[in-house]
């Protein structure tokens, strides 16, 4: 029973979401890059944005007391006219045991591990988000066709927004 409740609610992990590396595709000029950076900066949970202009990567650090919503970052990039081609979420873990299909809840969203072996995570860990609009469209289609997880295709588990991550 207790296990069922925990499964239902998801596990609140011993983790802090500190920053994300957002790679943006389709950018062609410094004006586009500046527009994208300024759009990301308008989000209330964003503390700082550091661009790597040569690689089209933004290192976005988050405020400690705000809830981080990756979908809002994706929306800002899309509104600027571009797409997210890769997003690496950097969480600070504290002795968190994980395995394939393990999921935890953070800021109202679920994070669901895919393609990982059993492990204990400690310290800053880079998790690559695998969901639609966070990887190239072709890669998402391939993964969606292969996986048995319906929540991967839909991006939701029950009614909770669920991001799928891997190491």
């Amino acid at each position: 029973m207790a296990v069922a409740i925990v499964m239902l609610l998801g596990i609140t992990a011993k983790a802090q979401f500190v920053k994300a590396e957002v790679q943006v595709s389709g950018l062609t000029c410094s004006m586009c890059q500046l527009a994208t950076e300024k759009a990301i900066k308008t989000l209330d949970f964003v503390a700082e944005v550091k661009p790597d202009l040569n690689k089209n990567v933004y290192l976005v650090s988050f405020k400690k007391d705000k809830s981080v919503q990756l979908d809002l970052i994706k929306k800002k990039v899309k509104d600027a006219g571009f797409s997210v081609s890769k997003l690496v979420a950097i969480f600070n873990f504290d002795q968190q045991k994980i395995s394939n299909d393990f999921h935890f809840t953070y800021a109202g969203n679920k994070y669901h591990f895919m393609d990982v072996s059993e492990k204990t995570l400690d310290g800053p860990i880079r998790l690559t988000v695998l969901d639609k609009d966070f990887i190239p469209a072709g890669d998402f289609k391939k993964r969606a066709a292969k996986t048995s997880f319906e929540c991967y295709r839909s991006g939701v588990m029950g009614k909770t927004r669920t991001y799928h991550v891997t190491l």
Partner: protein
Amino acid sequence: MKRIFFLLSLLLAGLNTAAQELYVATEPASNMPKNGLAIRMTQEGGFQNGYQSRTIPELMYGVNKNLMVHASAYLSNFFQNSYKLEGWSTYAKYRFLSIDSTNRHFRGAVYAKYSASNNPIDFQEINLEGNNSGWQTGVVFTQLLHKLALSGSINYNKALDNRGANLFPSSLAAESIGYTFSAGLLTYPKVYRDYTQTNVNVYLEFLGKKNLGRNENLMDVAPAVQFIINSNLRIDVSQRFQLWGNMTRNGKNMYLIRMEYNLYNVF
């Protein structure tokens, strides 16, 4: 013609630098960012019955990620000795296709323009940049190929009566097809470090027109150089040359100088 293909092959040969699609004579299929506002001032001119020039103030705004709008005013001495306000235009572009991957994208957009002018109508070329009242609709596709941005568009133009009782003469063709091909290339910087580095882009654009139902054609080539300063101030310098044509026109072989200032997240 040979010289043109030589220039084009030079442009294509520069494949190991980054590319640009902020075309000077045309619009790419890409749009401005949502909530972005650009303020433009364009000056163009040349010699035709003496020196004549046109000034075009313009505002551009990104409504959402797929829709952007322009509003322009036209002032010139093209049809009289003194400078006057001769008309205005409004333009909208909707991006319907966007296939992005790293350093590469393919985009498609449809666009429409309405233009009003109070000039007399004396020329065969339908020109919705100040000379004619009328409307235009077209489609544009832009491909960024890691290092080079190529764009092509085709549009339909319909001339209407100009304002101030300047009726469209029945002797002229009221409909035309326009077609363009543009190539753009970033030449500097080779490596991006920060937003203050000035970008230098070079462009070569081909701009053709054909009046429907008539044997009236023209083709211009417009080489251009562009500087982007501080990632928000853009300066374009271009010179158009008519390659061939048998249309009477007002505004042949003009230079163009433009300044554009970009503001982000304005609302």
